[in-house]
């Protein structure tokens, strides 16, 4: 019988919150991929979004505000067999954790990163998140937003993410399919999920998004995949197409896969080139003491260059 990925913990998100759709899309994707509970780990930061791991019936860490990506990277690098899914907010990942977000693009560890994009800080009562546009005034703000916004799609692309997509939390079927693609992508994948927050964001509502989103995947000509053998020019064109699409927002908002580059080796693979037996016997699985309880490391041979 397929594993039930929903835990028995009561969900305490506000009624109508877009977060519910993400949990639905995620659990369905994992079920359809036939994963067991020991194949996957969820890692989140702090925020409404940060509570996600508790609602999933699989191992999970609800970490510190902003630090979901490095915690997740530690998990993945210690045991690369695990599928590691990051579920964090836009404040978490693009403000306090922005440095890690960029660094992870450069690493391409092999994480699946799901951004809960509600344009606000939900859990601290509706302050502007870095995804909110300049001049916008949502319910929780005392005056219009004085910051410009970051664009998660173009930011992910410029940071080097090898899989960049956008979903809508009220189209769970489409989101589920995106998550399946993202989880099976070898490098790090990023999905910006448009996630209405009915409590604090009265501008970017479910209806607002419904009237604007369209699926790139429906277009026959849209092919975001970069294959390993592809000439640089063709690959660059895929990147610039993705970037251009990523800029669309005001009238129509594209959802689907912007960019899917299968040519960039994952960080796991890069490490495996240097660390002996890394994939066969990863850090989490190495036995570090002999049956007598003592080290099996030969200090004089390991540090032969220091012997005098």
């Amino acid at each position, binding site marked *: 019988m397929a594993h039930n990925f929903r835990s028995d913990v009561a969900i305490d998100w506000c009624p109508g919150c877009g977060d519910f759709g993400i949990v639905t899309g995620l659990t369905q994707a994992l079920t359809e991929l036939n994963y067991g*509970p*020991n194949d996957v*780990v969820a*890692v989140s930061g702090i925020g409404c979004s940060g509570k996600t*791991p*508790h609602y999933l*019936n*699989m*191992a*999970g*860490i*609800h*970490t*510190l505000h*902003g*630090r979901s990506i*490095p*915690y997740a990277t*530690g*998990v993945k*690098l*210690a*045991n690369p*067999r*695990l599928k590691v899914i990051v579920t964090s907010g836009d404040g978490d990942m693009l403000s306090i954790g922005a*440095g890690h977000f*960029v*660094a992870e693009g450069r690493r391409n560890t092999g994480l699946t990163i799901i951004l809960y994009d509600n344009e606000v800080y939900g859990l601290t009562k509706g302050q502007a998140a870095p995804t909110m546009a300049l001049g916008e005034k949502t319910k929780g703000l005392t005056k219009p937003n004085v910051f410009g916004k970051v664009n998660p799609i173009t930011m992910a692309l410029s940071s080097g993410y090898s899989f960049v997509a956008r979903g809508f939390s009220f189209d769970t079927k489409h989101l589920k399919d995106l998550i399946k693609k993202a989880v099976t992508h070898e490098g790090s994948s990023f999905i910006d999920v448009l996630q209405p927050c009915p409590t604090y964001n009265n501008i970017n509502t479910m209806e607002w998004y419904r009237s604007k989103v369209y699926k790139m995947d429906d277009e026959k000509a849209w092919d975001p995949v970069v294959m390993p053998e592809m000439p640089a020019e063709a690959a660059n064109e895929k990147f610039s197409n993705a970037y251009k699409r990523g800029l669309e927002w005001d009238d129509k908002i594209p959802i689907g896969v912007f960019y899917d580059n299968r040519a960039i080796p994952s960080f796991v693979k890069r*490490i495996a080139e240097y*660390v*002996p*037996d*890394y994939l*066969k*016997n*990863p*850090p*989490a*699985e*190495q*036995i*570090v*003491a*002999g049956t007598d*309880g*003592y*080290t*099996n*490391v*030969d*200090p*004089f*041979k*390991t*540090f*032969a*260059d*220091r*012997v*005098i």
Partner: protein
Amino acid sequence: MSNIDLNLSIGGPQGGGIDTSSNLISRAFASSGYNVLGVREFHSNIKGRHSYVHLRIREERPRSLKYPLDFLVALDPDTIFEHLEDVATGTVVLYDTNDEKAELAQARMIMRDTAKRINSTLQENKLELNVKGALALMKNRGAKIMGIPFSKVLEGTELDGPATRYYNVLGASLTLSIIGLDQKFTRDSLKHIFGNKEKVIALNVKVVDAAYKYCVENGLAGETLPDMDAAPRMLLTGNDGAALGKIMGGLRFQTYYPITPASDESSILEEHEDIKWLSNENEKLSSGGVTVVQTEDELSAITMAEGAAITGARSATATSGPGFSLMAEAISFAGIDEIPVVVTFYQRGGPSTGLPTRNGQADLMFALNTGHGEFPKMVISSGDVEECIYDSMKALNYAQRYQLPVIHLIDKNLANTSDFVPEIDTKKIKVEQSLRTENKTDFKRYTLDTKNGVSPMGIFGKDIFWMTGDEHDELGHVTEDPIIRDRMMEKRFTKLKVADEEIPDEDKVQVYGKKDARITFITWGSQKGVILDSIDALKAKGIEANMLYLKMFEPFPSKFVDKFLKKAGTIIDVESNMTGQAAKVIRMNTGFEVTNFILKYNGRHITEDELVSATADIVSKKKKIVVLENGA
């Protein structure tokens, strides 16, 4: 001739190969069977500013350094200016006669205030404001001035590129010849230093030969020193020791963000990621290596290490003050979530960026109090290279045994101390694994059903469990239940109580010297060696002293320390900080107040001569607090 005991400093511009010079001297003496202890001093600069290595060479292993110097080897004018105060009667000052022309005003790489001070010293003595003047002052102070025309020595020797490029090897070779070390050892050492770069070795052999020839022809060569017998040893710095200890202690995942003096440890781990095994019987035991990740910042370094630790890898990170500041929140997380992680905390001169390449011990209180909220952590400290090895193993063990963050303090002085370690005992410390679950269904990661506070750990990929920085229930889910909160707090702190009971006193505090001595030094970290030597020096003067040497600050050996101090004579706290932090910790834990202090916070290592004279000032009741000021 036998029984040599030489204090030698060799200095030159940063980037001028001073490490090679000191390495050559150390290695050559090593090959001949002697022992050498060294401390590297340098500016936060890549090229040009003054750096030097202070070495002590003896038959027995030296434990500390001493002024005045027996030898000052100057590879540039700055070295002569900077070390004016380190010479006295009998000091041999070896320099390149070409440097005699150099004016102090032109020595722009000397820190302005330092130059001003040198300027007034020379003026007071009515001497020229140049190298000649400085040498004259040294001569007045009894030093033996030995100018050698470096370019002349290498005249006729065919080299690749400008001769000045070889001055570091030349200076070291001249020194070795004058001291009387057999030429073959100096030649041999080049192989160690340059590895398989045959061409480089051949060129440098020519330099060595030219130096020895010059000394013989000019009657400078010393009487050849006898060879000592010595088994293979390792030339290790504190950084090396910590890296080696970590690998032996089962470390398989290390993260870091570059910072002096911590990142050398991570580079050393990277260089040795391919582990060599004692036995190849078991595949899982004798395969794999150390994964080292350079992260984007220290927030990432600590959290990535914790992520790996939760997943089952023995993990650590290494940093120094500025980086440790950024790690505080995640250390608190490791506390509430009971994560076995080690932070090797290399202290340097603070606050802020402070003295980034100099010594300091001002982070003890910070290490003890790091992280918000109350949670158990352990804080240990090392004082010599061997301790770096074994304490790194212990730190990983404590982290596993009690499932908590362990902070391992090493000071910059120790990190950059090089020492000859004769043997490494692989059977001294067992490598302990954390208590783990056995694939239980309904696994409770934080079960309260435990006597010692330790709950079996789960492993991602094998067990389902949750973790959160919020207070949590036994499963690891968020709770704000008042009763569970109390039980969880108590469970976590039980571990610290148990650690205090289980860990023997000698791993926390040690007493060196006679129990009933008239003077008791209290210290921690790298002062260990210099105090041991000072105790011997005082004894020679008929004064008995001992040392209470602290190794663990959390849990703190309160009873032992209290009992010992209550019976002690004149108690003097010796630390490399301004406020006597270890004494504060003692008072906090025992109520005992220490009132005599010998402190140093100029970032330089403490030497035997200044410690002995400061002790005399305190014993004679001239002073209660003595601030030490030695060092260029």
